[in-house]
């Protein structure tokens, strides 16, 4: 049992990192008023690009960098379409996801058999070996890949950036009321581009982490909807970085459970009272496909709860999300 929980936590941390990286990017982009539904595509491009680079050069860090870069290149297309051409953000995002999936399936077909030496599991210097010794959680939290630590560090950076820096304040302002920001001398155009590019970089990093640290191989469509979960995660977190940490680990745990659901038996023995009623329900709830919907279900519940409970200031959706801005419209 202990080893099962330790393994589950380990998988949770790994799954959470993917969501955390992609979610942070989405969060920044949306706070600036641009919805990015292309995360899934940007993750795939980052995953394949990172993987191929690592195979060719043997450097997983170089691969990680290329992953980020490719995510940003795809994001640049999104930014150009949505900010410069003021086209529909939803359409552009969905198109980019489909584009990313199609391109990576085509170009990635020859790389499925390849293997790489990805990110190794590390312990923290000095105190690491003692921390790893902590029962149950030690291995999961203190023997991780560099990208796991990086994601947590970046979360602090993102939180600080958005809520304690001038650029962050300007970005939030641009997402709330671009016209107001413009009259205060803030460049809506530049900040939105910046936010979308940062968002794409994060998505690319999430994809690269997936192929270089999480599974250490390339499979077409390997993101398996995690990009969409990242979009849901931002809503779940109500556009706040700190809540995103909780959400990422919760969703990561659900993901880890889903993969392991076959090996868990929670059904009652055939002689137990009500076994005939309860067992089918448990089986249904533990079905991997059904478990895959839990993050979305949780997001719907949080969304409903937030709308019912909150007053105008706390409803966290950026007011100008999905709104293109141009100065001279009369």
């Amino acid at each position, binding site marked *: 049992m202990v080893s099962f929980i330790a393994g589950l936590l380990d998988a949770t941390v790994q799954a959470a990192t993917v969501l955390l990286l992609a979610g942070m990017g989405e969060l920044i982009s949306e706070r600036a008023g641009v919805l990015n539904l292309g995360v899934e595509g940007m993750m795939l491009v980052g995953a394949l690009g990172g993987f191929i680079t690592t195979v060719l050069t043997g450097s997983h860090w170089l691969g990680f960098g290329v992953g980020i870069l490719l995510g940003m290149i795809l994001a640049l297309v999104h930014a150009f379409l949505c900010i410069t051409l003021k086209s529909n953000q939803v359409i552009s995002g969905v198109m980019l996801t489909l584009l990313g999936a199609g391109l990576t399936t085509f170009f990635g077909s020859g790389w499925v058999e390849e293997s790489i030496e990805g990110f190794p599991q590390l312990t923290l210097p000095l105190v690491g070996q003692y921390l790893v010794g902590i029962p149950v959680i030690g291995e999961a939290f203190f023997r991780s890949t560099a990208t796991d630590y990086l994601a947590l560090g970046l979360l602090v950076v993102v939180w600080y950036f958005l809520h304690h820096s001038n650029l962050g304040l*300007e970005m939030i302002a641009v997402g709330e009321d671009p016209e107001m920001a413009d009259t*205060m001398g803030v460049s809506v155009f530049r900040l939105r581009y910046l936010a979308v590019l940062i968002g794409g970089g994060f998505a690319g990093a999430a994809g690269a982490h997936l192929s270089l640290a999480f599974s250490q191989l390339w499979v077409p469509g390997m993101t398996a909807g995690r990009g969409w979960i990242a979009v849901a995660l931002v809503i779940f977190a109500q556009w706040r970085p700190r809540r995103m940490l909780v959400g990422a680990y919760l969703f990561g745990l659900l993901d880890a459970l889903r993969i392991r659901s076959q090996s868990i038996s929670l059904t009652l023995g055939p002689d137990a009272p009500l076994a005939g009623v309860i067992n089918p329900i448990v089986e249904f709830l533990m079905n991997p496909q059904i478990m895959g919907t839990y993050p979305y279900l949780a997001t719907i519940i949080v969304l409903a709860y937030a709308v019912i409970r909150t007053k105008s200031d706390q409803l966290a959706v950026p007011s100008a999300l999905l709104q293109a801005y141009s100065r001279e419209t009369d």
Partner: protein
Amino acid sequence: MSEHTTLRMEGILKEFPGVVANDHVNLSVERGEIHGLLGENGAGKSTLMKILYGLYSQDDGDIYLDGERLDLESPQDAIDAGIGMVHQHFMLIPRLTVAENVVLGEREPATAFRSDAEDSWLPAAVRNNSLVQSLAGQFSLGLDVPEQRIQDLADQYGFDIDVSAKIWELDVGQQQRVEILKALYRDVDLLILDEPTAVLTPTEAERLFDSLERLTDEGLSIIFITHKLTEVDAIVDRVTVLREGQNVGTAEVSSVTRAELAEMMVGREVLFEIDRDAVDLGEPVLRARGVEATNNRNIEALSGVDLTVRQGEIVGIAGVSGNGQKELAEVMAGIRDVTAGELLVNGEDITGAKPKTFVDSGVSFVPEDRLQYGCAEDLSVMHNATMKDFRDGRFGDRPFLDYGKLRDYAETLVDEFDVRGVSDVTETKAGDLSGGNLQKLILAREIYRDPDLLIANQPTRGVDVGAIEFIRETLLEQRKAGTGIILLSEDLDEIFDLSDRILVVYEGEFVYETTPAEADRERIGLEMTGGGDDDGGEAETSPPPSGVTQGSES
């Protein structure tokens, strides 16, 4: 052009598809003067000022500030040149604090990185390094020093503002003050004020005028956009009048009469006197007893309000903004829940009923914020005009709507209420109408359904003289037709001109009742600010006996 000229705008031309918003307009402003910019809604004042603030670029013409030609690509250029603007529609982010709204774009670094910080742990050499300053300005944010500065500015000009409050917690008047603080914080040389007093009470406006005069004494120049001729008389030195995008002329205020200015503005003579005929009071349409309600912050805003309104009666409610007027209006319109008390409309108790029940009971409502609550900005004039009535069967058999009928109805409203700027009722969006015309459209929608009770909250705020005249006449006609009207206004003249009874609201209670004939303005001013004497001040809100005829008091 005298040597004191600071701003010159020459031959400014700006065209929008199908409209010439500014047709070779000239404007010159002298240093240290308050220059009035007068004109009806849609006359091109805002467009001209948006060009000056770098929001629009002109198609032709030049701008000179202190002799130097300005090339304004963006508001940042205008800010750098020392031009500040307080916009007509609030440019504030509700979710952020006062301080955050004010410093936005100023790149205030964390306190330790400030070059003027006294006790920073960083050596001055590091702090004053331009790279360090640039990085700190982007990647840190210090609000302590700015908050103190904003608070000092607020105190200096007598603005009652908590700098750490969120904007949504403030009332409209306070939000306006934050707008002015935004400009003052940027040490501007030329300040554009787009109808700054529209939301201030007379006392507050007086205080603002004092502040503005103090600013001009220090050499600041002010462009003051207004519709109120009384304000032109009160503080403006010279005035430029625009009509239909053209410059009608510039004049020394001391050398023109109010009537002349009004005629320049509207292009015809304007009546200032309103004839109020006597109207017989009928049955009570509204009885409110012991009504209590909370505001958006869940703090008690109405503490036991009794109010009766009769057919053919206009009850004017005066008060300083933020004393419960907004909540009072919303409670009576059925869109804010009461926490105690009861509401009877036409004798029927509909306390706690849905807004639709209020609508169906004959309650009409003209809200304070016409863009946010009065209309659906992105929907057409037709949709907005029929929004309250499309269900009542006149427009086709349910569940289908006859768009031809909806259209005819909307066109009737537009014609009868003289709503201008509508090319096609199904195409023109409500949000594209100018303030005065949108207000006429909303009033048309609310009045054409022949309501028993009409609640009008600041119906003439921010609209031009022509529209004000029209709106006031419409309210009086409606009174004649037997509608009971609650008029909430911060314009005391309006309250005096239109009301049969005047109630003063202070901190969520009626503290004084009078009639325009008996009223003493000073007493009302005192009561509005809580300074009334307590012995005789308790409100007598019982209505006069049924059938009493109110005389004409205009």
